[in-house]
Every structure is written in structure tokens, then in C-alpha cells.
């Protein structure tokens, strides 16, 4: 297929030049009806904010330019089929899970799942079987999945329908996908991969294997992250064993019928850019992050980790485009470094948690931006560094699942003080952001570990959310 094409962008260009009189929505009518909007976003942007019509195709049942764009994307990503998504990678993750498991069916997954995976369990009624992603005690981060742990979980749950994985993790850690796929397929389980942080794997050399290349059945890629498309756009990829028509039905259960053509065109244009220039783009990103890692490690105390942490099991591979930095020896939590960088140095990084922070490096960065980051880290160490006493390293909370998330979420509940809730079964989830992973989820018993972690994360400046009570002082527990 000709990856130089961008059919959706081309159709919008045609719409612009044909000067069709719009007696359809959106009501701003190419911006004319809302001059402030046009002034703010620019004429070119509002002109292509159009509605579905034959020349622009229909996202719910594509037959024209969207179909072509999806076929181009499938080829570019090495998938059998691709679905353009406008509800973020959250919608892609939810479509995967709702496709693979229904009420009462089991799905194997690591505990450090994104909240989008948890919410899809509430929607579908599936039963999660959590696998402990091993944790690196020194770095204080969750790792990939050990093959032996997966094998044990599969043996203990031969009735499970699917296995769900994060690959790569936020910090760039990859599991042995190929072996996991072989194992899962041997037991008739689908492999679903949350590849939100790995869009670039399909377009670069010297990086870990993409889910599609590893033979996974479905993968959710956040093209708006490393792929450069507009925020909220995403692509769902499927392999050859998956019926695309049924996937489309599942997607249409929750997808908007007024998909934004700004998002769709951005996916189309970004796919073209990645297919044509990806190798060069990510070579430059790897050069920048390699340089930054070396400079940050020369400062001392900070540890910008790289491929040396690979252990061929729970860290099967490492995505070197990720600039992940451990801060525990500086005496500062990752989230504290995040706050200092933003507050005092005018540098916004992607996120920080207890022991680490992540600076997102992309094609949009220049060497001099890297110099600013490295120099700021040096200055922060000099002016704010402390003795590393009392830093909590690990963040894995062992979940005790009593009910499925759906049963608990819709069950009879009462409110009580979070601090008094030890031993109760939670009816909602509590998340610390960062990293946005549930500390406990609906249907789980509230443990001392979880309560201690929430208190500590709160003290370090993480934002706590997920409960009906906006301050997360109270939690709903099952009656």
C-alpha cells in the first residue's frame, strides 16, 4: 500500500476547496458562526471540523476514506486490521477487554493496570485474576511479567479467556511477549496488549518488539503519545485470529457517533509521517535520550536507567526512548522533583511517582532542552538534595479480590472514613496520580499496605482520586 497517502486528510482538503454549502452540523458552519472560536483555533482547523458525510465516510461503519486510512494503518503497524479511535486509548483498552471477556469470564492481568482496564471490567462483568508484576526493590517500580508467573496463573486458571499486559510499561520495561503469546495461544487464550507507550516500536530499529510482531491478538496504541497525533486519538490493532466485524460492533457500543475529523485526520497524517520517517525520527529520539541518560548519571545520585537493567525475564527488554530517572538516593521523591522542576525551573515533565520520574522525549525536543533538564537536575541536587532516609521504595500492593469489580461497583454500599476502612470490601477504587494505577479496586479487601501507601503518597504530593468523596476522606464499602 502507498503510505504516502493520507485519505482522510485528502478528503478534508477536498471539502475545503469544493466550498460545499453546509446545511448540516456542526452549527458553527466552518467557523463562520463562531468568530471567537475561529480566531482561537485558526481558520484551517475549524474548516475541517466537519460531520460524517459520504465523502468523509462514517467511523461507525467505514466504507470510504476511513476504511482506506484504517487499511493503511494496519499495514503500517503490521496488523491484520486497524481501528481509528477517538476516545483515547482508554476506548481502545475497553474495546479489547469487552471483546475478549464477558460477564463471569476470567481474564489474567497484572495489578498495575491503567484505570481504563479496571473500568472495562466494571462494564463487562469479567473477573480479573491478578498476577503480581514483580517489583524492583531498588528502583521502586513494577516490572514486566515473568514467564513462570504467567505459566502458573494459566495452569491455575485454565478456564481464563484472555491475558492482558502492559507493554512497555510507562517506564519502558518490556516483557517476553513472543513467549507469552506462544504460551497463551497453546491454552486458547487471547493476548491483549496495552501498548499505549509503544506506538514507536513498529516504526524504529533497535527497540523492543511490537505486540503485533510478537503475534498478540489485540493491541491498543496511543498514537497521540510517541506517534505525534492529537490528544485523545488512538488506534486499536488486531491480529489474524480476531474477527474485525465483531470488534467493530464492540467499539460501536460506546463510541461517539460524532467523531472529530480533527482527531481522525491527525491519526491519518501521523501514520503517514511514522511510516515514511519513523526510523529517522526515533533514531534521533534514541540519540537524545542516550545522551541525557549519560549526562544525568554523571551528576550522581540520580539514576537514569537503561538497557543494563535487562534481566531476560521480568525485564526482558527496555525501551531506550524512555527517559526514566530514579531519585531515591537524592532524598527527593520523583513527584517532588516533578514539582520543583515545574515550580522553580519552568520545566514540565511527564510524571513523577514515589521513587522515579519520567521525562517524555520526542521528535519535538532539541538538545538544548535536554541541557536545561540536566542542568536543573544538577542544581536541584545541590540546593534541595537530602539524605535518603525514610523513602518508601516499593509500591506493589497485594490485592485481595473478594468480588468482581462489577458486583462490587453496583453492590449495596455505605460510606465510611478511609482511615477506619481496614478489612472492609471496597465498592470503589482509589488511585494515586501519578501513576494512575488503582491502589485498590472495587471488590477488593482494603489492606493495611494500601492505607499506608495512600497516606504516604498523599504526604509526598500525589493526588488521590477515584472515590465519590472528592477529598478521598471517605470511601464506599460494601454493606
Amino acid at each position, binding site marked *: 500500500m502507498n503510505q504516502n497517502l493520507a485519505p482522510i486528510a485528502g478528503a478534508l482538503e477536498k471539502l475545503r476547496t469544493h466550498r460545499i454549502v453546509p446545511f448540516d452540523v456542526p452549527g458553527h458552519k466552518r467557523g463562520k458562526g463562531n468568530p471567537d472560536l475561529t480566531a482561537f483555533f485558526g481558520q484551517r482547523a475549524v474548516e475541517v471540523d466537519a460531520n460524517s458525510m459520504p465523502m468523509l465516510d462514517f467511523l461507525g461503519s467505514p466504507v470510504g476514506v476511513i476504511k482506506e486510512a484504517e487499511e493503511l494503518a494496519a499495514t503500517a503497524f503490521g496488523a491484520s486490521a486497524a481501528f481509528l479511535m477517538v476516545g483515547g486509548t482508554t476506548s481502545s483498552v475497553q474495546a479489547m477487554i469487552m471483546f475478549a471477556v464477558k460477564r463471569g469470564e476470567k481474564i489474567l492481568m497484572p495489578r498495575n493496570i491503567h484505570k481504563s482496564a479496571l473500568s472495562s471490567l466494571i462494564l463487562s462483568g469479567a473477573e480479573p485474576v491478578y498476577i503480581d508484576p514483580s517489583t524492583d526493590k531498588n528502583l521502586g517500580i513494577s516490572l514486566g511479567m515473568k514467564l513462570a508467573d504467567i505459566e502458573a496463573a494459566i495452569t491455575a486458571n485454565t478456564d481464563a479467556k484472555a491475558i492482558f499486559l502492559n507493554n512497555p510499561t510507562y517506564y519502558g520495561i518490556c516483557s517476553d511477549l513472543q513467549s507469552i503469546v506462544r504460551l497463551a495461544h497453546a491454552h486458547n487464550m487471547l493476548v491483549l496488549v496495552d501498548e499505549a507507550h509503544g506506538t514507536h516500536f513498529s516504526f524504529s530499529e533497535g527497540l523492543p518488539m511490537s505486540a503485533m510482531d510478537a503475534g498478540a491478538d489485540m493491541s491498543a496504541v496511543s498514537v497521540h503519545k510517541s506517534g505525534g497525533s492529537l490528544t485523545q486519538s488512538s488506534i486499536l490493532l488486531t491480529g489474524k485470529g480476531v474477527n474485525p466485524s465483531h470488534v467493530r460492533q464492540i467499539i460501536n457500543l460506546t463510541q461517539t457517533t460524532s467523531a472529530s475529523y480533527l482527531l481522525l485526520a491527525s491519526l491519518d497524517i501521523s501514520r503517514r509521517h511514522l511510516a515514511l520517517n519513523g526510523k529517522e525520527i526515533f533514531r534521533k529520539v534514541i540519540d537524545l535520550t542516550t545522551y541525557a541518560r549519560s549526562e544525568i548519571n*554523571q551528576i550522581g545520585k540520580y539514576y537514569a536507567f537503561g538497557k543494563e537493567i535487562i534481566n531476560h525475564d521480568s525485564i526482558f527488554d527496555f525501551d531506550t526512548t524512555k527517559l526514566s530517572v530514579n531519585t531515591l538516593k537524592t532524598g527527593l521523591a520523583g513527584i517532588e522533583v516533578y514539582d520543583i522542576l515545574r515550580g522553580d*525551573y519552568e520545566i514540565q515533565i511527564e510524571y513523577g511517582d514515589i521513587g522515579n520520574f519520567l521525562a517524555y522525549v520526542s521528535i519535538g525536543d532539541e538538545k538544548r532542552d535536554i*541541557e*536545561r533538564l*540536566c*542542568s*536543573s537536575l*544538577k*542544581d536541584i541536587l*545541590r540546593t534541595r538534595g537530602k539524605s535518603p532516609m525514610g523513602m518508601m521504595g516499593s509500591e506493589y500492593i497485594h490485592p485481595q479480590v473478594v468480588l468482581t469489580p462489577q458486583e462490587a461497583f453496583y453492590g449495596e454500599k455505605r460510606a465510611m472514613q478511609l482511615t477506619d476502612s481496614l478489612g472492609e470490601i471496597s465498592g470503589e477504587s482509589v488511585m494515586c496520580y501519578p501513576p494512575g494505577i488503582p491502589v485498590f479496586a472495587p471488590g477488593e479487601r482494603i489492606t493495611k499496605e494500601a492505607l499506608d501507601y495512600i497516606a504516604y503518597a498523599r504526604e509526598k504530593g500525589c493526588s488521590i482520586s477515584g472515590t465519590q468523596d472528592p477529598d478521598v476522606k471517605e470511601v464506599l464499602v460494601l454493606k
Partner: protein
Amino acid sequence: MELWFSEIHTQNVRLDIKLNRHLFSGQSEYQRVDIYESLEYGRILILDGFTMLTEKDEFVYHDMLSHVPMAVNPNIEKVLIIGAGDGGMVRELARYPTIKHMDMVEIDKMVVDACIEHLPQIAHALNDPRLNLYFEDGLKFVRTKQNEYDLIVVDSTDPFGPGEGLFTKEFYGNCYNAMTDAGIMVNQLGGTFYAHDILSMQRAFGKIKGAFPVAYAYQANVSTYPGGHWLFGFATKAAHPIRDAQLDKWQKFGLDTQYYNTKLHAGAFALPNHVLKLLEGGNV
């Protein structure tokens, strides 16, 4: 035929200089570099469309960034110069026999090469044996130094483009770390007239005040810079720019300077009221 160079000072104000001939144009990895010969100002160096110096008024800028700190501490031996690819700072500092070592860090080799060829009056001291020239990012260079320099001169472009990193908290913090206890950092802070310049000058001065216990601004008039009235930053770990100045000792160097003299030393720190207000009263 008339040949003019227009510098955009604001959206509504520009400075036009009539040219005699074009000498050099190049696009480096970092910026566009132009050198022209003008009728009124002699040769002029332009980076990304902004006048960096002219042969006619460069002495003001170079005097004020070199002799002011040298008069506060005439014992300065080891100097770090950031930017200054035209060689003007080195030319002035090389006049002090007591300076033993100069490191100059300029990011853009094209500027140095073009100035050596076309601005020899300014660049001629770049072959001084005490000088070590590094072509790299000043922000990176200073990060690796500790307790080393008696004087750091930051001769940067404006805080947009390649010079941006030299107006940041992290840069000033790392300069503090790179300085000896008796060290002085001076830098160009920007103009006090146009709103755009004022904002970046205020932000930079605020960051210097945050990084150093002693921080002052001082002034000079550079006719080709936007608005004319220009500020410099003076920052130390302890030394006061006037009370600790050793003007008599400086006199003994016997330097013939075009702009600086010991009588204007204190005056340079005496700022007009509207400028004091811009600095939130934070001067002297």
C-alpha cells in the same frame, strides 16, 4: 541603489541602518549569522536578525562587562566567558596581565570564524595563549564545574533561541556552584524600554536574585540596542559591587578605556526610578 538593514525592535518600531556592503551570511545549526559594513556604525554583526554589536558602539558593552567586575576584584585569575563569539570580551580581559586562564564557551563556531575573518578589530585577541576555546553549550559546560572561576561573564544573545538556556534558574545556580567564594558573575540582562524586553529582563533578574545572596543590576547606554538603555547583572556570594570595589588598585592597571572609569563605577549602579520600580526596588 540604497541598501538598508532593518532591525525589528517592536511590531511598531524598527531601526534602519544604511549599508555599504555585505560581508558574510551563513546559517549554522543554531542561528543565522550576518555581517555587514554600514556607513554610520562600521561593521555590524547580526544574529537571527538582531544586532549583536557594531564597531562604533561595542566598546560600551564590552567595557561594562569586563572592567566593572575587574575593579571590584582586581585579583581575578581564572575567568569563564560564556558566549561572546565575537571575541570582544576576550579582547578586554586579555588586557589584564594578572588573568592567568580564560575558558570561553561559545556554542556556534560559525560566529567565531566569521568574526575572525570580518571583525578583526574585535576578534583579534582570540589567539591569546591564556585562552581555551570550547564550542559547546554553556549551560552544559558550567554544569560540570565547581568552585573554579573568579569571574563568569555571560555574554549571551537574547533569551529566545540558542541563548535561552543562559537566562534560566538552572544556569545561574550552576554558575554559583562553578564560582569561587570571591567569584563574580556578570551578564547582559536586556533593555528597560520596550515591554517585551522588560519582561525577560525582570524574569532573568528575579532568577539571579534567587540563586545568589548578592545581586545587583547596573546600566549603560548602547545606542543600537532597542531602547538604548541597557542593564547588566552583577552577582556574587558576598562581595558588594561598590563597597568592596578596589578602584585605586584597578587604576594601577593603567588601562586606557573608552567608556569605563572609576568615577562612573558607582553611578552605573544608580538606576533611574522607573527602572528601580521594574526591579521591584531590588537594587543597591
